[in-house]
């Protein structure tokens, strides 16, 4: 639906190559595009204004380095500014000298407080703590039951009290001391920031438990209003941090930036899926590229890691690089890729994907037809596509309900891909130099593995051109 910021910039800067400095006009032209991208990502209008002001300051007069084109140069500035805005200080959880350490969760209805209370409990459990979950949401029917079920699942006791949320919260401290739990996580009812009565209740709960950490749970799909509610919650509860939820969808999550700017407290955790394990400390750099529509390579890699069996994938990959990749390998890999989720959202996570691809409706039914065609091939044909002649094509087409020309297109493209990938195998020596240029991709675990985007680079040399994927055009990874 949206163009990537880079492809917008390419147009803006196409006339600029070869000059040594960004002029004010060039920067302003780029800033217009940045504003569009940020607004489409649901960053609050006022926050957009502040941000672009800072970006302008940094970008005007910036000396152009030779390694990058102007578009990449500006993207780099934008990305670093966004990452700084989202990051800054990190939240380090210091446990109270006199247990229990109390954590209070608050937020709008449906932002995911109850689920994330359980996720947080599991996180503390893994830190070697023994948390207690407290159900102080007596507003929503069955909210406490939901918490109990989740508590059972993670193996954490749940405490509640029928005599009201404030009572439940305050009594939980004694309960924690009695049962030797050293972290108390209080789940509160969802409330609107403009609901004076409910906000007062939140204040009273907070007073009763004197939390060490108060987290605002914010949904990544939230729009412009995020600042209003965050401000109100901050004024009432003095927030210590933010938990960003529902990052498993394709929302850009610009609201996080708004909230961060308004509240000035770090985003501590991100919830990236429905499973209780899908909860992790927040990565500002990942969200920054996501907000700019530049893909989310690291999330993609994480997904790949869980979808692929390492050993089999290594084998497949080495065959790919040797040029002995077969249709069977292709089929298996394709199925694994599909297992990673919606193809369109996967494409969305890849940086630098050209607009034709990003905007395209990926009809997964067509993938079914490709599968059908491969299934209609004999094992020998799958291993050696070169033997597929007109009569074999006819048979495969009949077997899969396609036209012989479809089969031809598939086989041709398969062969192209195979020779492209074989070419890639010879690039090994350049890997270190190339990976240094994209070093930020490895920020997280330093496994050296974040060089994955290397994969499709040589695509640009083959007839199956994917414009925008040329070497060195990996924005945000420089």
């Amino acid at each position, binding site marked *: 639906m949206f163009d990537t910021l880079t492809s917008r910039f390419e147009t803006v800067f196409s006339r600029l190559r070869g000059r040594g400095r960004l002029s004010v006009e060039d920067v302003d032209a780029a800033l217009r595009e940045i*504003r*569009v991208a940020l*607004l489409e990502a*649901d960053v609050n*209008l*006022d926050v957009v204004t*502040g941000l672009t002001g800072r970006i302008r300051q940094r970008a005007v007069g910036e000396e152009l380095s030779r390694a990058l084109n102007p578009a990449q140069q500006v993207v780099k500035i934008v990305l670093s500014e966004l990452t700084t805005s989202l990051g800054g200080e990190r939240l380090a959880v210091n446990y109270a000298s006199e247990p229990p350490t109390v954590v209070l969760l608050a937020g*709008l*209805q*449906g932002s995911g407080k109850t689920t994330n209370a359980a996720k947080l409990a599991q996180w503390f459990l893994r830190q070697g703590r023994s948390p207690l979950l407290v159900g102080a949401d007596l507003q929503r*029917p*069955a*909210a406490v039951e939901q918490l109990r*079920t989740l508590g059972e699942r993670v193996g954490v006791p749940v405490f509640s009290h029928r005599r009201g949320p404030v009572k439940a919260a305050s009594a939980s401290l004694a309960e924690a001391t009695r049962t030797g739990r050293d972290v108390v996580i209080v789940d509160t009812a969802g409330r*609107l920031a*403009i609901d004076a009565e409910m906000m007062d209740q939140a204040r009273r709960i907070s007073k009763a438990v004197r939390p060490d950490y108060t987290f605002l749970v914010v949904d990544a*799909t*939230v*729009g412009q*209003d995020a600042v209003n*509610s965050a401000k*109100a919650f901050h*004024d009432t509860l003095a927030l210590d941090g933010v938990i960003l939820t529902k990052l*498993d*969808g*394709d929302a850009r999550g610009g609201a996080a930036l708004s909230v961060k*700017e*308004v509240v000035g407290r770090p985003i501590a955790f991100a919830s990236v899926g429905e499973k209780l394990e899908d909860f992790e400390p927040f990565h500002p750099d990942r969200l920054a590229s996501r907000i700019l529509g530049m893909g989310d390579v690291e999330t*993609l*890699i994480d997904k*790949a890691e869980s979808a692929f069996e*390492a050993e089999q994938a290594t084998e497949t990959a080495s065959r790919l690089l040797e040029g002995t990749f077969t249709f069977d390998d292709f089929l298996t890999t394709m199925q*694994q*890729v599909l297992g990673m*989720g919606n193809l369109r959202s*996967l494409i969305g996570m890849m940086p630098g994907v050209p607009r*034709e*691809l990003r905007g395209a409706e*990926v*009809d*997964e039914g*067509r*993938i079914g037809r490709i599968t059908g065609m491969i299934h209609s091939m004999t094992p020998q044909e799958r291993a050696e596509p070169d033997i597929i002649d007109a009569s074999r094509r006819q048979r495969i087409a009949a077997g899969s309900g396609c036209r012989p020309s479809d089969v031809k*297109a598939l086989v041709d*493209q398969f062969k192209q891909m195979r020779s492209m990938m074989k070419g890639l195998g010879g690039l090994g020596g350049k890997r270190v130099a190339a*990976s240094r240029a994209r*070093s*930020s991709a*490895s920020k997280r675990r*330093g*496994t*050296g*593995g*974040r060089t*994955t*985007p290397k*994969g*499709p680079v040589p695509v640009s040399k083959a007839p*199956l051109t*994917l414009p925008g994927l040329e070497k060195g055009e990996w924005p945000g990874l420089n």
Partner: protein
Amino acid sequence: MTLLLAADLDGGGMTPLIVAGLVALAVALVVAAIVVLRRRRSRAPGAGDGATAVGDAADRVIGRLADRAAGAADVPAPSLRDRLSRARTALTGPLTSALERTSVSEEAWTEVTEALIRADVGLATSSEIVDSARARTGAAGDDPAAAKAALQAELRERLGGFDRSLARRGDGERPSVWLFVGVNGTGKTTTIGKLAKREADAGSRVVLAAGDTFRAAASDQLAMWAERSSAHIVRGAAGADPASVVYDAVESAAARGADLVLADTAGRFHTEQNLMAELQKVRRVADSGSGVVAETLLVLDATTGQNGLAQAQQFTEAVDVTGVVLTKLDGSAKGGIVVAVQAELGVPVKLVGVGEGIADLVPFDTSEFVDALFA
């Protein structure tokens, strides 16, 4: 820092998992390329023209915004108003203040555009609306009254003209099924609870289908609502196939002579292909037995930003959404994304949730909504 990271890289080498990632990228790209190349061949010319026009309009507004934004960088502190005073500002908000000057300037139109963007209408749609309103004003030029009328007329026209009634397609034998879909946490279960009460009070015999078998205690939550409206509820075990729960509910409704089944489903992201396929199955099954699906209602949270359009698109594509329920409109969020949803997909808002009470579910009113957009 860069050096440090580079050192990390050099030490790590290629692990099998990286190879896995490489293959994933390569194949996903190739597959996508095949699909796109084929599609491009069959695509009718001129399909992209509309998008370009929108882009131009947006560009102009962004230019205006950019000019204005040059100075002020601070985020003004939004004040916490109670609902009443918020309702009052609806009449004195930016719309009025911008347009009740002696003459309508470029500046004023920019402020209007900003107000729309702040209401989550979205940049492209906001620009379109303002451009059309300006075109309408035409010869009247900078007369504030005319400008205001034009803007309101434009919005009402965009939002108006839809049948917002909730359809019943059943007959004496076959109950109507209303299926509720949406992403997590938008308020599907609560909406069903309120609606059950409303329809039961209006004389319908209602059966609730607890089709959210995924979220912990979702069916308990629905059961409590069922109690409040004395509706019959059909539940399945946790993790049960939602389609089977809905099927059982429909059969049970038919057997009891009930005329309406409200079917809950688990919240799911529109990007989760398998879960969307599951939803398609639920809809198919609900239609296949003794019942008939009369409405598929997308529950959309008023706080949702631009992602709401993607949600609506994907759900409509998957299960043919017939209407939107806009929830949580009692907060400070304006729900402006439904303007785009209705314009792009032709799916009207049918109900609005304005509070947690059982009576706080009301029909959508275009004029009220338009006024509130600028509050």
